[in-house]
């Protein structure tokens, strides 16, 4: 077995490893979007935030030599883009979905523009922890090389779940998302709550982007994100605005995304591109299954523009 020839076991193992690796950006973006949407706003611009985050993380990591400063820079860039979204949305008669789409285009465009000089150089990458030391099968070891950001995300999900229930900020965010009138009647500024929630969401999405450029795939180029940002927004709906379900859904999407490469590695090459489309097919299926013209989604924050 030491030669690594483990036959068809490669596929589930690669899917597992892929699930862990590919899911990290999904996880961060969806947790971020979860915060934003629970406050009653949809930020579709997170795709742009993700790419901007990836670019700024790569740039800062390259300039300073510290990938962690890169992660921080990505988060701050994301928070800034979140503030921009929230700022525009707080103007009267502005639709958050339309603003999100324009910010998505703005973010990706700006990242490509600013990131041109970063395609060539190599930046310091994020470290990974080897959880596969006990095995001498290379595939197992590869699958279990887990990045610290993934672990952070896994810890963050239950923390958010707890925070929505038991902290002042969690309660305020939910109030703003469920009934803006109630929040106003208690003297809270709904716009401020949503501004902060959108900034927090952008911060996490930016960090999700830093994972793309600093760990997997681990370089900066214009084809870095293949719509993970926008898929993660759909994933929040699938996860019923529950951070724990966001975690499981992210893993499922990550696994689906790893299916194509995994099958290719065991020699199944026909339909490679079809398998690569698995996450998008999954998104479509989920949307079709969970949506009905006859009822509104359960668990949806009542102030969300898609449920009103």
């Amino acid at each position: 077995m030491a030669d690594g020839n483990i036959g068809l076991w490669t596929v589930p193992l690669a899917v597992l490893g892929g699930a862990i690796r590919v899911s990290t950006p999904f996880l961060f973006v969806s947790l971020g979007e979860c915060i934003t949407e629970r406050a009653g706003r949809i930020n579709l611009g997170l795709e742009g935030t993700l790419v901007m985050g990836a670019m700024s993380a790569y740039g800062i990591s390259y300039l300073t030599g510290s990938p962690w400063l890169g992660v921080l820079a990505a988060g701050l860039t994301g928070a800034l883009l979140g503030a921009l979204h929230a700022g525009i949305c707080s103007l009267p008669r502005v639709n958050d979905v339309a603003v999100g789409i324009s910010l998505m285009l703005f973010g990706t465009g700006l990242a490509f523009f600013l990131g041109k000089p970063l395609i060539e150089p190599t930046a310091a990458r994020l470290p990974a922890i080897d959880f596969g030391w006990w095995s001498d099968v290379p595939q197992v070891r590869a699958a279990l090389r887990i990045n610290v950001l993934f672990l952070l995300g896994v810890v963050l999900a239950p923390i958010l779940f707890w925070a929505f229930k038991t902290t002042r900020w969690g309660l305020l965010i939910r109030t703003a998302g469920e009934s803006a009138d109630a929040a106003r009647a208690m003297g809270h500024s709904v716009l401020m709550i949503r501004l902060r929630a959108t900034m927090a969401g952008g911060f996490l999405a930016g960090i999700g982007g830093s994972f793309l450029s600093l760990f997997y795939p681990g370089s900066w180029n214009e084809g870095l994100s293949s719509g993970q940002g926008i898929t993660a927004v759909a994933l929040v709906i699938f996860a019923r605005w529950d951070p724990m379900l966001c975690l499981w859904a992210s893993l499922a999407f990550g696994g689906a995304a790893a299916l194509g490469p995994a099958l290719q590695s065991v020699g199944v090459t026909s339909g490679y591109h079809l398998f690569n489309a698995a996450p998008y097919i999954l998104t479509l299926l989920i949307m079709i299954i969970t949506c009905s013209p006859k009822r509104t989604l359960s668990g949806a924050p009542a102030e969300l523009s898609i449920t009103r």
Partner: protein
Amino acid sequence: MIGEDPTPSSAFGVEAIAMTMRFGAFTALDNVELKVRPGSFHALLGENGAGKSTLVKCIMGYYRPTEGDVLIAERERAISNPRDAHALGLGMVYQHFTLVPAMTVAENLVLARDDVPAVVNWAKEKQALEAFLSHMPFRVPLDAKVSDISAGERQKCEILKQLYLKRRFLILDEPTSVLTPGEADEVLGMLRKMVEAGELTILMITHKFREVMAFADEVTVLRRGKLAGRGKVSELTPDDMARMMIGAEQLTVQPARTGETGTIRLEVDRLVARDDAGGLAVHDLSLTVRAGEIVGIAGVSGNGQRQLVEVLAGQREAESGTIRVSGEAYSANREEMRRHKMSLLPEEPLKNACVGGMSVADNIALREFDRAPFARGGWWLNRSAFRQDATAKIDRYKIKTRTPDTPIAALSGGNVQRAVLARELGHDVEVLIAANPCFGLDFAAVAQIHAEIMAARNRGAAVLLVSEDLDELLELSDRLVVMFHGQLTYETRAGEADLTEIGRHMAGH
């Protein structure tokens, strides 16, 4: 409660002096004076648009009055936002619930505090809440989600929330509009006891004379932004107060009930419909309405009435069951509605029966716009026919609009409903379905709408009237049924109806 508390521990009075509030060229309040004595139950009466809400919002700091002062416990205070008012011990219970439906009662109560701890220790908070509730006249289930409790319990929660926050001056904005008469008496009776014990002062906005007579000490009446009268309730009759509210305006006289009941026009058989969340809203409901008869459906809001009307109006698909009109199967399409001369007065007419951005004339023609004389060949519209028809109806139904081309959304609620009335009742009617047709309208509009509904009945229409206003139902209906949890649970002739009996069935007992 505790001496060091910054808010007063017992009832105090509030006065508004020479309040004037202008919004641009419009004067909503004109030199109004209001004096609520400490430890009293004060009623603020007035029609919609009389300035009641504006006045209390000035007191609560939502609006900054153009002129005038607020005196709290005889001291002049500057209240520039609701937080200032809260800090002075003023609290308000709104007409629309301000509880968050997706959260539990306990979460809602803790959330309302100004000092919500950064991390909430739920075990400790629940203990404190239980201790607080044990001193209160009514109880609420702390762990239930607000969306799962009844309207009566929600209203109790709203009031408890104010007491929990140690507010000693409560403003209640039409607090009983969603309650059964029994629940209303229970809630107001308990508040009355707290007032008598000197713990509370209450200012209640209402238009129900029964509640004013039964619970209030004093009353202030507003009309069109001006003080129209005030006095001790014990020295006034409902007629006196009504005269203060309406002034010299002439109301439409309702025609007498005439004619015989005819054949069955509308027949609903074991109808099942779901609400937006997928829950069962209308459950095996069967019902018949005959020609020349008004059948009233009573019930607390949220018992499936809305969904029933939506199915009849074609806005919602039924899950199962059949509807027959004049013996023929009915699926609420345009052709059937025209053939059977169906008319609809849905609730919230601007949302459910009008296109807000289109003109009054277009909205009046919505049902017939592609038929002669409005259109030639089904597609070439004749604008002058629209205008002619609209001008005639605007005149006949006393719709107050600048021109027939004004967008209907610019009209007041009463005039929107008059325009819908003109469209729906301006021709022969065989079946009329009306849902809360007078909600939020002034006396003149209410009298006119009631007269038109009665006239339609006398001309032989079968009328199904869904309403949350029992007085309206008792006045108009021939037969009254009570709807509870999607089912009809009680039926009586309106002439022999017993208010307590109806109230009991509305509450599901």
